[in-house]
């Protein structure tokens, strides 16, 4: 389309057309480079943040020798150290896979981030530039497909090292990631049901208009978050690493930069999981309460503000990841599997059915998805929100009674279990029975 026609179109329509042709290619390359750099630098700073937060939680001060009181140059020092260390290759290792594994662990995280929109579109003289590296209309399906690849790196590392600890770490990781991915996917289905689309752009747009999904899909968010913790191998689900049992799990045999790659992979996974949570449940890059900023006509300052909000939201979830890591101990392996298969997956399935039924009933009753009550309260948001609060209360009060995590006593026989349950009964009815 000639430039003059484009200008004419822009005068006629309020909406600016997306960039196309050569400028599109240039913008994509620029976005790729910028996003890659920002994530790499961000990951480096996250290692520092993790050390600082762990230190503060433990009443220590954390790294403060390099780069001022905050230790801002510590990541650079760590990187330099890792580059200068010796690259070891175990004799028994399968060399090709051994070298390939760190890259395999690290790529899917970055590839996933490519489809996550991180700011409002930027209008330029060549057209509207969407602030996402790859604007895939099937964004969410792509994420589900790619994030499953993350386990390959870890399993390959465990297998190729030819070391019992590595192998055990790799095995655990594959079991863990396979089982929690199901719950994660099922929880995300409710988002797709409500949004009616798999494009992340549309999901964000719907949240801008109809309110963030955190309330109407609260339980889905909870399941998604727990599964995200398991997917990123963070505590309390860090069984693949499990320092106290498996030395370092799948990366026992790795040194220097290859070891560092696994570290980078873990942190980029964390960034991606946080970004995904934000996109699906917290309105992505949108600014709360100020919808003027979130909607067209676009302007460069809107892009900047929304970018800042996206970074802030993602930052909060990364902080949450770290906060939980330094609070909770690790699950036992059977507890992990039990939680995944006996609680999370059934819960996600039932939740999906309930949400689908609720949406069906709403459309049957005749509530329009765009209906707004009292001028500010989106109808779907309010109705599903109330439903979710009830469901969440049920889950947290009824299910969370010694069932979420089975204690060691769950492996004893039925009679013994009855006796253990009897311990708690007199205490509960202390007023009635006495002792």
């Amino acid at each position, binding site marked *: 389309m000639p430039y003059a026609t484009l200008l004419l179109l822009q005068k006629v329509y309020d909406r600016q057309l997306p960039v196309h042709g050569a400028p599109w290619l240039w913008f994509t390359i620029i976005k790729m480079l910028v996003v890659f750099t920002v994530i790499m630098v961000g990951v480096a700073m996250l290692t520092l943040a993790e050390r600082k937060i762990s230190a503060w939680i433990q009443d220590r*001060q954390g790294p403060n020798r390099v780069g001022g009181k905050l230790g801002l140059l510590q990541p650079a020092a760590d990187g330099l150290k890792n580059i200068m260390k010796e690259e070891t290759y175990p004799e028994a290792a399968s060399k090709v896979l051994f070298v390939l594994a760190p890259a395999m662990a690290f790529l899917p995280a970055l590839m996933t981030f490519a489809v996550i929109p991180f700011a409002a579109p930027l209008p330029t003289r060549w057209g509207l530039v969407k602030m996402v590296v790859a604007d895939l209309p099937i964004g969410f399906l792509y994420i589900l497909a790619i994030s499953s690849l993350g386990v390959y790196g870890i399993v390959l590392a465990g297998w190729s090292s030819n070391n019992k600890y590595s192998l055990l770490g790799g095995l655990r990781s594959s079991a863990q990631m396979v089982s929690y991915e199901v719950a994660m996917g099922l929880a995300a289905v409710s988002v797709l049901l409500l949004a009616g689309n798999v494009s992340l752009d549309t999901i964000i747009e719907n949240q801008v208009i109809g309110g963030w999904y955190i309330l109407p899909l609260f339980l889905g968010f909870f399941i998604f978050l727990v599964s995200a913790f398991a997917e990123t191998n963070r505590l309390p689900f860090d069984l693949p690493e499990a320092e106290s049992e498996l030395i370092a799990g799948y990366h026992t045999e790795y040194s220097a930069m290859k070891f560092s790659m696994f570290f980078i992979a873990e942190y980029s996974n964390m960034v991606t999981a946080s970004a995904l949570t934000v996109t699906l449940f917290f309105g992505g890059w949108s600014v709360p309460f100020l919808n003027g900023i979130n909607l067209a006509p676009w302007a460069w300052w809107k892009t900047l503000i929304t970018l800042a909000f996206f970074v802030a939201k993602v930052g909060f979830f990364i902080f949450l990841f770290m906060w939980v890591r330094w609070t909770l101990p690790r699950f036992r392996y059977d507890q992990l599997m039990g939680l995944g298969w006996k609680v999370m997956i059934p819960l996600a399935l039932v939740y999906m059915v309930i949400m689908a039924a609720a949406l069906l009933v709403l459309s049957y009753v005749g509530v329009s998805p765009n209906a707004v009550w009292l001028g500010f309260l989106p109808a779907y948001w309010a109705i599903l929100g109330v439903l979710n609060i009830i469901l969440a209360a049920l889950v947290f009060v009824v299910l969370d009674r*010694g069932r*979420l995590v089975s204690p060691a006593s769950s492996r004893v026989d039925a009679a013994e279990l009855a006796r253990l349950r009897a311990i*708690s009964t007199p205490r509960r009815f202390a007023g009635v029975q006495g002792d």
Partner: protein
Amino acid sequence: MGIQIKVLERPIEQTSYLRSTLKGMALTFKHLIDPHKKTLQYPEQKWDLSPRWRGTHRMLTDENGKAKCVACGLCPQICPANCIKLVPGEDEQGNRYPLIYEIDEFRCIFCGYCQEVCPEEAIHVGRHYENSEYSRAGFVYDLERLMQQTHPVCEMWDPADPRGE
């Protein structure tokens, strides 16, 4: 029957995991924002040593700058770690002085008996602890080096003031 597992008897029906998780997170957050950090920035900051701290030895000197030691031989006698080497000498006035006086700080257990037993109050254990060396030989302090130490000396336990006040 496999391995015996110690099973904690806990009231299953009353165990709530989500609530205890939230409780734990509240606790860690309280520590996170607590400005009082316990770390001592070691080379810059140091602990105040107790006046009774027994560390690196020091030989006190008289007003002429000579060691107070009279080479009586009590400190090598009492030393439980056998780390003091003393060869006595005698000058033309008949005063005894140490020809060789060496303390192996590496063998020393810093019991402070040498200071306690010394009739001249010459050898002391000091309020000082940073005595690392690159070689084992470096830990053998000769008389010259013991006299050069400047750190405050240990105040031994005093029966009149048992709590060191």
